[in-house]
């Protein structure tokens, strides 16, 4: 196999990576006993990014400085984000170049691509430390219903993180790969993917090694966040009823309400009732209450209903009936909510499949696809589709579709253009994506300017424009003047997203001051691990002295000293090998400590009357 291509699930709420290990198969990339999940939450400390758990812990201390749900902003302009949704965020947004949304943090402003790049870097660095390899290529998953702009934005984020996105893969399709290869059964499957911020439904036909997507539908602004918001609405009502002057719009209040809502949602997935208490620093009131699953249901149902409407649309597009399905697969963190499972089961008339952890299945599928792209296997082939029609503006602002939704990619369409005045040497084409009749209701992807058309009488030049959609669902355009057989040059003016120049500038800036060197990062990572291990041994030293022979204790002490010395050195591999030796020496100690823990747990059990 050539260079490893890992799979990354870049989620609204959580991100993680997976790869295919020799002899083991597909696995999420994590240290033993640790969670593979990195929360997609960021903040800054002393000018440096903090990503994941650390940022999440600090979120209540500095709510306006904590960034989350960035995926919802990818490839969007500020005006496309509804005002009420902006109001729900505890951080500030503003408009940047070409109306692109910017996120404000401290005195600075960042594009969603830059922020997503920081999440991707965190995932990449951790994977590199665990695998002990330099990683440069990845399959990155996106909601199937992401349009061209959102896909490009994701690919740009990867570039900014020093990763080549070899494939932008649809999340439900990734899940289907993980399930399909697990079971190897022909048939029709529906993948219901409800994440933190997005919803997708994909219908696939599995025939031998071919995984063919027949139809996909969804909503890129619908997800578990909406459950939280509905609960926040209810909490707000309750608090205002009790304390009419409560101030619930400050960033801190919003953050507390959001987190309480999330806790309520999660707890009610396991029990029927939960007590909660809310108080906000600087405000004199404190509110206590309880939430039951019965109270929760009417808040969830409208959101779930919207997902089921999309499911019906997808079935109609495929020309399938619910009864004809062989399997329904649940994907995404929000599908652990029992009410979601109930409604999905009712709609599809069958118990959904949840054999693979819905938090991990997308990353696993991406890891498997990465394995295939790296040349590691050819035992399956994915044929995916473009989720929304692509077309151009014609007379009167009508949207003329060149490639319809659910067309298998890669695909292409050709269109002939001519000039309207004599000696015209340039033509402008506006390209749109969407499912509506008028371009006004569709997404403008950009303006393409064809230049270098030979000077001729009006109507004589024949410019053939080719619209190509690659296997990532991303569009490229080229043009040829048929009479002279010359390539017309194309200038792309993106309406959203970053220009090539802007990406290059950002990349250059990041090379300037970031510690990008793999060895340096690995050294930092190994030093931290070594520190933890040494502390762990010290903590259990009394057990060691009792349980182990004196010579063993001495050997461990000596090796600990060697590791300490190597920590001062500059070679990560030397440090790693000394740590491995220490690990071997302390194995029996670890077993003893573990045994003790189990023993004391058992003793406690004995004391407690059953």
């Amino acid at each position, binding site marked *: 196999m*050539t260079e490893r291509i890992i799979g990354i699930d870049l989620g609204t709420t959580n991100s993680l990576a997976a790869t295919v290990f020799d002899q083991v198969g597909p696995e999420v990339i994590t240290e033993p006993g640790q969670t593979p999940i990195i929360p997609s939450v960021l903040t800054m400390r002393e000018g440096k990014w903090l990503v994941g758990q650390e940022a999440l812990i600090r979120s209540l201390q500095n709510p306006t400085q904590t960034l989350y749900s960035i995926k919802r902003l990818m490839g969007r302009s500020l005006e496309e984000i509804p005002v009420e949704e902006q109001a729900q965020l505890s951080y500030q947004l503003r408009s940047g170049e070409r109306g692109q949304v910017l996120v404000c943090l401290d005195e600075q402003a960042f594009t969603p691509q830059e922020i997503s790049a920081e999440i991707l870097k965190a995932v990449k660095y951790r994977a590199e430390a665990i695998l002990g390899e330099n990683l440069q290529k990845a399959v990155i998953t996106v909601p199937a219903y992401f349009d061209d702009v959102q896909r490009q934005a994701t690919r740009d984020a990867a570039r900014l993180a020093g990763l080549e996105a*070899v*494939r932008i893969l649809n999340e439900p399709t990734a899940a289907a790969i993980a399930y399909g290869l697990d079971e190897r059964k022909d048939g029709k499957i529906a993948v219901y993917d409800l994440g933190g911020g997005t919803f997708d439904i994909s219908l696939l036909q599995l*025939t*031998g*090694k*071919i995984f063919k997507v027949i139809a996909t539908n969804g909503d890129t602004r619908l997800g578990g966040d909406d459950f939280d918001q509905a609960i926040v609405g209810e909490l707000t009502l309750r608090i205002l009823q009790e304390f009419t002057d409560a101030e619930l719009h400050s960033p801190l209040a919003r953050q507390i309400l959001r987190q309480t809502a999330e806790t309520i949602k999660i707890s009610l997935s396991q029990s029927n009732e939960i007590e909660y208490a809310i108080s906000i620093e600087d405000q004199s009131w404190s509110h206590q209450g309880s939430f039951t699953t019965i109270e929760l249901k009417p808040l969830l149902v409208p959101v779930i209903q919207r997902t089921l409407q999309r499911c019906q649309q997808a079935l109609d597009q495929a020309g399938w009936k619910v009864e004809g399905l062989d399997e329904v697969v649940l994907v995404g963190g929000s599908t652990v909510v029992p009410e979601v499972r109930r409604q999905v089961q009712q709609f599809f008339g069958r118990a959904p499949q949840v054999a693979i952890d819905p938090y991990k299945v997308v990353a696993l599928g991406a890891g498997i696809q990465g394995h*295939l*792209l*790296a*040349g590691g296997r*050819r035992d399956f*082939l*994915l*044929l995916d589709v473009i989720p929304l029609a692509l077309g151009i503006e014609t007379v009167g602002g009508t949207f003329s579709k060149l490639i319809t939704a659910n*067309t*298998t*990619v*890669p*695909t*292409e369409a050709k269109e002939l253009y001519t000039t309207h005045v004599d000696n015209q040497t340039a033509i402008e084409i506006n390209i749109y994506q969407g499912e509506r009749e008028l371009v006004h209701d569709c997404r403008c992807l950009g303006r393409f300017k064809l230049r270098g058309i030979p000077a001729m009488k009006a109507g004589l030049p024949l410019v053939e424009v080719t619209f*190509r959609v*690659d*296997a990532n669902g991303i569009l490229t355009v080229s043009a040829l003047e048929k009479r002279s057989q010359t390539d017309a040059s194309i200038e792309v003016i993106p309406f959203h997203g970053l220009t090539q120049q802007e990406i290059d500038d950002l990349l250059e800036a990041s090379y300037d001051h970031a510690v990008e060197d793999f060895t340096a990062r690995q050294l930092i990572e190994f030093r931290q691990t070594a520190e933890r291990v040494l502390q762990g041994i010290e903590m259990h030293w009394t057990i060691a002295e009792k349980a182990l022979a004196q010579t063993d204790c001495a050997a461990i002490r000596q090796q600990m000293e060697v590791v300490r010395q190597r920590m001062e050195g500059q070679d990560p591999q030397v440090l790693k090998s000394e740590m491995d030796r220490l690990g071997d020496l302390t194995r029996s100690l670890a077993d003893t400590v573990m045994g003790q823990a189990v023993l004391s747990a058992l003793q406690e059990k004995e004391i407690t009357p059953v």
Partner: protein
Amino acid sequence: MPFCSHCQKSLQSALWCGACQQLQSSGLQADYFSVFGLPPRYDVDVKSLEQIYHELAAELHPDFFVAAPAAEHRLSEGLSARLNQAWQTLQDSTARAQYIMRVWKSKTPTHERDLPTGFLQEMFALQEELEELLEAKDQQALATKHADFLQRLNDLQQNYQQQLIELKGNTPDTTSCKQIQQQLNAERYLLRLLERCSSTSSETDL
């Protein structure tokens, strides 16, 4: 059948040589039938067409050319696009009929906008009736209309499909070419009426 540009053996598919596994750049312009190594006839066994589609996709897809030189990767993308379009067209009975008529069009003159005699007047009348029913939201009458349109569509399709099959891949004479094209044009009107019928009835459901 054309020959492989690499090993000169005759090609099963215009896109790819099964003998020496080489992509065929001439396949980028291949007609949809020769993509599948089939003669241009209307009666196609869709099941075996799908099987060839899957086999070719598993050889041509750009996923298997990630490490290949850029030009080869691009070629695999172009050929896969051709294959996908060919499959999408030939697996659908209406799209296949339209496509085969386009292939023949280069040999016989056809009449892009020709319709059977009296058809347009009939359509206008039906359209008017339909608009009245939609206005009145008369669900029962709409359902009857819908069934009526479906029946007409079925009759029409069966008729031209039979004609196409009987040609057995021979180029039709001017008269039958005109007849088939007229029916294909008429089909579009009927499909539009049907769409109008069902889109509005589902709107009222909500």
